[in-house]
């Protein structure tokens, strides 16, 4: 049994505690350790992904207790994919936070960042439904702190909405878990899969309720249509590196839907026929439409990007909602792509905001941005990817989703919404880009003389990136863009890998036997057989 599987959770946890306890007054060391920890995390995640690539399902039993009673951490292709994605994003985001000085605008940025990583990693790796809840809470608590990092009236205000919304989500999650436990008597995902499949026909009412409650919880996280209200303000107001890291948080919701609704409530399960399957796809398509209309309607660049997140989640969910191997494979590719695209856009918004000073990110013509050519180029690339134009990864991902939708009865709806919403997104992004980067030249003459002496320099030297600002933010964004180019170039091999991942999901038998069949420590009760029927000893570990 390899201990490496648990390190993506343990390493950030240790690092966060170490930073907050030992390095509280050493900002430079905080940066060094935080970055070192995240890079080490990336190396570990890459190692795990390579190990899982051939289809082995790695299992780690906490305290060596055997599965249905003890808690397990499971690393299969899907989990390691998301762990690797998170680690990669974490490195870029951290580089940006350090380069732009965001981490020093409030206290404990690095500790919270590490806790956030721990929660996300744990949510991807756990094999236990209640621990999924616990890790959701860990990542949420860290995100509350990060969300209001560096303060400000507006950020606190939006922070309250965000926290309250997520508290309600957590309550719903607990109701769902309570129902599941009352119906099945277990919370281990593999065990749940077996017991729910074996349930007699007449007694499935409770589990049907639980399955719908659970998908509502994940829909809150993934910002699907009627439950998306928390997202635009929260993402637009959060500090830029945090918003970029939040790009993976919506994916946690998507991941949980993929995991639960292929393993525990698989599409062919009789008990849940016609429950979520009927409305998830229309809801996802509406989310997509709404997100892209929001892109067109936004009057600020940060809200525009936040709505494009909703749109991309709609696109992702409409592929997941097909619940076919092809659909999930396409969704995985799109999830990777949209994480990078979202993160790059949020970081670019921050650079634009920084440099336009008085005008902030309002979509209005203002003085040109110093170093505008490079920023405009990066925005152009990221927007192309997000809107799904060739040649970048957004186009490839969209193509895969369109192709995967062929078999579905709603195929024409899917095609119509995806294609028309892409057009709307293109118009929205193009309008924003031209207002901020092109119209500024026309407006330069009149406004630069006005009030802001800091901006006047930009009017003369439009195409020279200023030498003094830090290079690191551009390295971070450039790295994310390079990752997008890489997943475009290697789309073929990646798609084969994602197809294998999704095949593994639709054949849950090895997962279940690996989790439940691996021997471990059993209950050692002096003497008799009475011990055998008790569910007891798992409880002691639950509290961690």
């Amino acid at each position, binding site marked *: 049994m390899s201990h490496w599987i648990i390190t993506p959770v343990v390493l950030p946890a240790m690092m966060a505690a170490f930073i907050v306890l030992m390095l509280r007054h050493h900002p430079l060391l905080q940066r060094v350790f935080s970055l070192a920890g995240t890079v080490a995390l990336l190396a570990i995640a890459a190692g795990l992904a390579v190990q899982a690539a051939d289809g082995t399902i790695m299992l780690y039993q906490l305290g060596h207790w055997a599965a249905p009673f003890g808690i397990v951490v499971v690393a299969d292709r899907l989990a390691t994919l998301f762990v690797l994605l998170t680690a990669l994003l974490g490195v870029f985001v951290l580089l940006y936070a350090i380069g732009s000085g965001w981490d020093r605008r409030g206290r404990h940025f690095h500790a919270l960042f590490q806790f956030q990583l721990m929660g996300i990693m744990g949510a991807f790796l756990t094999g236990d439904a209640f621990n999924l809840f616990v890790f959701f809470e860990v990542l949420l608590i860290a995100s509350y702190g990060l969300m209001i990092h560096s*303060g400000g009236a507006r950020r606190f205000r939006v*922070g309250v909405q965000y*926290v309250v919304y997520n508290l309600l989500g*957590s*309550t719903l999650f607990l109701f769902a*878990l*309570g129902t599941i436990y*009352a119906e099945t008597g277990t919370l281990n995902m593999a065990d749940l899969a077996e017991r729910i499949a074996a349930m007699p026909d007449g007694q499935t009412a409770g589990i049907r309720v639980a399955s719908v409650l659970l998908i509502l919880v994940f829909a809150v996280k993934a910002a699907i249509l009627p439950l998306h209200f928390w997202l635009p303000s929260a993402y637009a107001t959060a500090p830029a590196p945090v918003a970029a890291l939040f790009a993976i948080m919506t994916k946690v919701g998507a991941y949980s839907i993929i995991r639960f609704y292929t393993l525990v409530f698989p599409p062919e399960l009789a008990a849940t026929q016609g429950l979520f399957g009927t409305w998830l796809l229309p809801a996802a398509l509406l989310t997509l439409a709404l997100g892209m209309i929001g892109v067109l309607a936004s009057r600020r660049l940060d809200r525009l990007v936040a709505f494009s997140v909703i749109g991309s989640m709609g696109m992702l969910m409409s592929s997941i909602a097909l619940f076919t191997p092809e659909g999930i494979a396409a969704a995985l590719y799109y999830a990777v792509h949209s994480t990078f695209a979202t993160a790059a856009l949020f970081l670019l918004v921050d650079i634009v905001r920084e440099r336009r000073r008085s005008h902030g990110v309002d979509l209005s013509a203002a003085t040109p941005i110093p170093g505008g050519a490079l920023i405009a180029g990066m925005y152009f690339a990221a927007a192309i990817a997000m809107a799904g134009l060739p040649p970048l990864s957004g186009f490839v991902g969209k193509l895969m989703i369109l192709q995967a939708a062929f078999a579905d009865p709603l195929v024409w709806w899917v095609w119509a919404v995806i294609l028309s919403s892409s057009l709307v997104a293109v118009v929205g992004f193009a309008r924003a880009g031209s207002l901020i980067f092109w119209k500024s030249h026309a407006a330069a003459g009149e406004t630069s003389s006005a009030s802001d002496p800091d901006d006047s320099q930009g009017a003369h030297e439009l195409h020279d990136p200023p030498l003094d600002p830090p290079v690191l933010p551009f390295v971070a964004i450039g790295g994310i863009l390079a990752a997008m180019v890489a997943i475009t170039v290697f789309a073929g091999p990646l798609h084969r890998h994602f197809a294998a991942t999704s095949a593994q999901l639709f054949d849950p038998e090895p997962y279940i036997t690996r989790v439940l069949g691996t021997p471990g420590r059993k209950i050692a009760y002096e003497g008799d057989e009475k*011990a055998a029927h008790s569910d007891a000893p798992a409880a002691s570990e639950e*509290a961690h």
Partner: protein
Amino acid sequence: MELLLASAIGVMTATGLYLVFRLRTFPVIIGTSLLSYAVNVFLFASGRLVVNRPPVLSDDAAGYTDPLPQALVLTAIVISFGMTAVVVIIALSAYLSSDDDHVDDVPEGLAAAKREGEPEVRT
């Protein structure tokens, strides 16, 4: 007992939801606390209601109560307690910094017009 417990959960959930919909921070926080009480009792009941039975193994026990929900409730209580503390602090900062305790969103234009002089979002 079942009726009492079920109606307690129902009443707490209903009251909690009503308070959350008041959209001012104080009732909302009380409402989320009530909801978390409701869910804790609900979790507790998910292991079936048993009276006067031990949760741990012993030689002379006639039967057992399910200990797992108790552990789950413990975790849930700790988490909801911490969350309530966090939301109280954030809500307090929000109230003190903007002199307004509404939870719902202010339209973009209005918010911008309202605090013209203030530096926008960042410090």
